[in-house]
C-alpha cells in the first residue's frame, strides 16, 4: 500500500507551478534574493511603526551627526534621522519598481500579443514603433519624458514604465510567434474558437514564463531608474524621502558626512541585487531545458 502511495503523491505534486517552486527552492541565491525582497516589502509596509523617528522631523541640534546609539545611521544636513528616511524611502523605491513594471506590462503585453498574433501590416507598424523607442537609450528617454511631464514620483513612474514598454512588446511578440504555430493552437482554431479567445486562453498563458522573468529583472532596472531620476531631481520631490534624492544631497557633504551617502546607496544595491538574484533563479526554474 505504502509503496503505491509514494509515486502517486509525487505525481500529484508535479503540477507546473509546484515544479517551478521546487526548482526555485533548490537555488539558494534566488531564495536569499526573495527573502531580502520580502524584508524590504515588510519595511515599506510597517515603516510608520519600525522607523525610530519621523523622517521629516528636523533637529538643528543634531545636524550631520555620525552614527550613534541614538541615530544608528547618523543624521543629515538638517538633522533628520537617516535610518528613518532610508526605511521610508523603501516605499518610493518599491512603489516605483512595481508600478512602472505594471505600466510596462499593461501596455506591452496587449500590444505585443496583437503584433504577434495578427501579424502583417499591424505587426510591421508596431515593430517599427518599438524599434524607434528602443533606439532611444532607456534612461535618456525616461529623463526626457519626466522633463516634459514635470518632476514628481508619479510622473517618474509613468516615464520609467513607458520607457521600459518596448522590451515587453518585443518579448511578448516573439513568444506569441513561437507559440501560435503549436498544434494545440491549431486545434483550438479548428474547433472554431474566436481569435481573441485563442490569443487570451491558449497563446498568452503559454508565453508567460519569460515575461515573469523579464518583469522581475525589470523591477530591478526600474528601482535604479527611479533612484537615478530622483538623484537628478526628476523623481520624488523633497522633503519626501527617497534613496535617490538622499544621495543627491549626500554628494555635497561627502567630505564631512559620508554616512549620508553610504546607507541609501547600500539599500538600492541590496534591493536591486535581490531582484536580480530572484530573476536569475526564476529564469532557471522556469526554463524546461534546465
Amino acid at each position, binding site marked *: 500500500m505504502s509503496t503505491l502511495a509514494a509515486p502517486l503523491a509525487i505525481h500529484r505534486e508535479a503540477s507546473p507551478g509546484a515544479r517551478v517552486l521546487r526548482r526555485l527552492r533548490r537555488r539558494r541565491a534566488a531564495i536569499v534574493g526573495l527573502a531580502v525582497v520580502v524584508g524590504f516589502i515588510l519595511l515599506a509596509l510597517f515603516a510608520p511603526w519600525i522607523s525610530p523617528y519621523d523622517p521629516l522631523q528636523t533637529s538643528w541640534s543634531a545636524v550631520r551627526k555620525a552614527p550613534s546609539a541614538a541615530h544608528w545611521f547618523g543624521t543629515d544636513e538638517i538633522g533628520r534621522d537617516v535610518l528613518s528616511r532610508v526605511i521610508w524611502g523603501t516605499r518610493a523605491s518599491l512603489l516605483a519598481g512595481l508600478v512602472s513594471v505594471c505600466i510596462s506590462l499593461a501596455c506591452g503585453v496587449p500590444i505585443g500579443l496583437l503584433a504577434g498574433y495578427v501579424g502583417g501590416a499591424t505587426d510591421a507598424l508596431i515593430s517599427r*514603433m518599438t524599434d*524607434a523607442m528602443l533606439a532611444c537609450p532607456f534612461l535618456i528617454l525616461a529623463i*526626457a519624458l519626466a522633463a*516634459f511631464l514635470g518632476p514628481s514620483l508619479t510622473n517618474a513612474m509613468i516615464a520609467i514604465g513607458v520607457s521600459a514598454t518596448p522590451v515587453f512588446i518585443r518579448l511578448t511578440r516573439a513568444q506569441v510567434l513561437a507559440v501560435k504555430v503549436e498544434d494545440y493552437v491549431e486545434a483550438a482554431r479548428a474547433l472554431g474558437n474566436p481569435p481573441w479567445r485563442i490569443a487570451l486562453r491558449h497563446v498568452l498563458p503559454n508565453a508567460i514564463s519569460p515575461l515573469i522573468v523579464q518583469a522581475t529583472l525589470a523591477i530591478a532596472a526600474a528601482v535604479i531608474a527611479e533612484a*537615478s531620476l530622483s538623484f537628478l531631481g526628476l523623481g520624488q520631490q523633497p522633503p519626501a524621502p527617497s534613496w535617490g534624492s538622499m544621495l543627491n544631497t549626500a554628494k555635497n557633504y561627502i567630505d564631512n558626512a559620508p554616512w549620508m551617502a553610504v546607507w541609501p*546607496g547600500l539599500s538600492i*544595491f541590496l534591493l*536591486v541585487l535581490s531582484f536580480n538574484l530572484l530573476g536569475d533563479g526564476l529564469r532557471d526554474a522556469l526554463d524546461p531545458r534546465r
Partner: protein
Amino acid sequence: MFHYLAQRLATILPTLFFVSVLIFGLQQLLPGDPALILAGEDNDPTVIAHLRSTMHLDEPFPVRYAYWAGGVLKGDLGESQRIKKPVLDLILEKLPVTLELACIAMVIALVIGVTAGVISAIAKDSVWDYAANIVALWGLSTPNFWLGIMMILLFSVTLGWLPASGYVSPFEDLRGNLAAMIMPAFVLGNAIAAVLMRHTRSAMLQVLSSDYVRTARAKGLDERVVVIKHALRNALIPIITLGALEFGTLLSGAVLTEQVFSIPGFGKLIVDAVFNRDYAVVQGVVMFTATAYIALNLCADVGYFLANPRLRG
C-alpha cells in the same frame, strides 16, 4: 552585400521617422500652452509671440511636425532658449568630452569583462567562475552614481589621490585629463564590464566545446594557444557586436556620471536643459542620441556580416 545594406536601410528609415514623431510628440506632453511655458517666468508678450511664430504653434500638429522634421533633415535641431545657440552646435561642443569618457569606459569594460569572462569559462564551476559571476552581479546591481560617490570618498577625500570633480582638456594637460577621467570612466565601464563578462563567458563556453577546439587540443597545442588563438578570436566577434550595442547604456550612464563628477559633457547638457526648461535642447539631444544609436547598430550589423564568412555566403 549591397542587397543586405539596402534591406537594413529599408527598416532604418521608418524607424527614424517614428523616432522623430516620438520626440516631437514629447512637446504635446507639456501641460498648457507651450509658448507660455517656454517663455519662462517673465511672460514677455514679445517673446511669446516670437515663440508662437517660430514654432508654428498656431498650426495643427502634423504641420508643426513637418516644419520641425524639415529642419532636422537639414541639420537644424532648433535653438536653445537659454543660451541662444543652435542645439546642434551645443551638442557638437559637448560631444568630444563624452566620447572620450565613453571610449575610456569601453576600454576598461572590455579589459575587465573579457578577462573575467574568459577565466570564468575556462575554469567553469570553479571558485574563479563563482567569483567572476559575483563580480558581474555586483556590476549589474550597483547604481553607478552611488559607486561614483563612494569612489570620490575613497580616492579623493580619504586618500587624496585623484580629483573629486572637474574636467581638463587632454590638449592642455594630458596627465590632468587622465586623472580626472579615470574614476568616472571606471564607474561608467563597471556595468558594461558585467554585461560583457556574461556574454564572453557564454560565447567562450560555446566555442570551447566546438570540434575545432577539440582538434586543436588533440594536436597537442599549448592550452594558452588554444584559448587565445582558437577560442577567444572566434568568440570575440559576437562580443564586439554586443559591445557596440551597449552604446545606449554608456550614454545613459554618462548622464549620471557626468552629474556626479561635474564633467561638462553631453549628459550634463541634457540635465541642465531639463532644469532650465530648455526643451529644444532636450529634444535635440534625444534625437541625436537615437540617430547615433541606430547608425552604430547598423555599423555593428555590417561589421558582423563582414566578419562572418557564413553570412557573406
